[in-house]
């Protein structure tokens, strides 16, 4: 009987408020800390990007002249073999599998065949069309689903690598 009474006794309201405040402060401290670190990382990354952009611009200018003559001959060559190719990309949040259809040497269709990431597949539903339009795996990063986008890119890259002539 006394045990039943003990079990039916409810937690003190003051205790509930106190625990809520303690847990919230733990979460908020962790959250603000991640914001600081990600801001630091992004600023260093943007600095690196700016630097590398300058370097790549130089390289591009130098190689432009050489490429102009080569491009005329390679633009008509087929890059990929026709067929359907599969690829998958995975990281800590799960994996994404795709099938890439090549017709007449170019990307005709991209399908997400499996998505087991923590983020819903609907987040990255627009990416296959971008690959077809741009004829490249370089798609826009979906905000809030960066890792799913990375998985998708890796999967497309893998499929395209096996499709290369």
């Amino acid at each position, binding site marked *: 009987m006394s045990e039943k009474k003990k*079990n039916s006794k409810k937690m003190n309201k003051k205790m509930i408020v106190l625990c809520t405040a303690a847990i919230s402060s*733990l979460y908020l401290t*962790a*959250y603000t800390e*991640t914001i600081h670190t990600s801001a630091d990382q992004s600023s260093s990354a943007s600095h690196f990007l700016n630097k590398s952009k300058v370097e790549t611009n130089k390289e591009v200018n130098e190689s432009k002249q050489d490429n102009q003559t080569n491009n005329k001959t390679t633009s008509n060559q087929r890059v990929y073999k026709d067929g359907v190719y599969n690829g998958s990309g995975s990281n800590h949040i*799960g994996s994404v599998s795709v099938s890439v259809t090549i017709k007449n040497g170019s990307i005709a269709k991209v399908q997400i065949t499996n998505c*087991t990431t*923590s983020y819903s597949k609907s987040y990255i539903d627009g990416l296959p069309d971008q690959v077809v339009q741009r004829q490249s795996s370089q798609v826009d990063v979906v905000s809030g689903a960066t890792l799913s986008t990375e998985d998708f890119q890796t999967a497309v890259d893998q499929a395209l690598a096996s499709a290369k002539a």
Partner: protein
Amino acid sequence: MQINNEKSSEIQNHRSRVTSRNDKEENVMVKLKKMTKAPKRFLIASLILLMLVGSFHSEPLSGIVTVLIAVASSVMVDLIFTISHKRKIKFPDGALLTGLIIGLVLSPTSPIYVTILTAIIAIVAKHNIKKKYKPIFNPAAFGLLISASFFSSGQSWWGGLTLLPGWSVILVVIIGYFVANRVNKFPQVFSFLGIYFLILLVFTFLNSQYAELVIRSPYINSTIFLAFFMLTDPPTSPAKYRDQIIFGAIAATTSWVSYFVFGGLTFLLIGLLISNGWSYWTSYLNKSKKRVAIG
């Protein structure tokens, strides 16, 4: 005189009709109150509310359809078990709850067969892995873990409002507080969230990339959803406050361990199932101790 009599009888009839209608309305209210007073029914009502709010995303019907399929499959399989074991057929609130949780965790884009299989596995586990009449493991968590491991089922935890803007997690917390209060599981929830966030804070200071992921949506929503709506399941978790605190601590710690070992989606489910196992083990040890003391 006759006219007066007719009038008075008409008035009496009218009064009796009104009072019977009032009685009926009162009965309905009492029934509704009774229905929602039972912890399981209250939890069901809360989950339905989350389902309706969570449906305000790009494809509202797909989520509800997933829930309906999961609920129908769970109730059907539960009914088969009830009939085959020749038990009294009653309102299948347990199966309904399992189906609701499965539907709210599985991605709305999941194939129908995956939803059905997940529900079947959950109810089969509920009726076969049990101690007397109580399941050892949370049926929904068990079904979801198996389906994620073998069928690569997508789990979006949309019941935790992962498909809505980040601030909507506050609503999950508010509804969750009512549920935790009704089932008297606050110590368990606080112990789980406290230790979970404490570990998260440690990894944040260590500049771990894993902490950066877990602190945001959809991970934070799924953590809150699990803490308030799955961890608090009365048959698979302890009642005593001291045990509740240990239960929550085990769930939080093992969740983090499985996150580092396996990654992906299932780490919270693994943590919950391990703590379910611990709860069963301690109750088994206590009973055997009592038997020895009596003997």
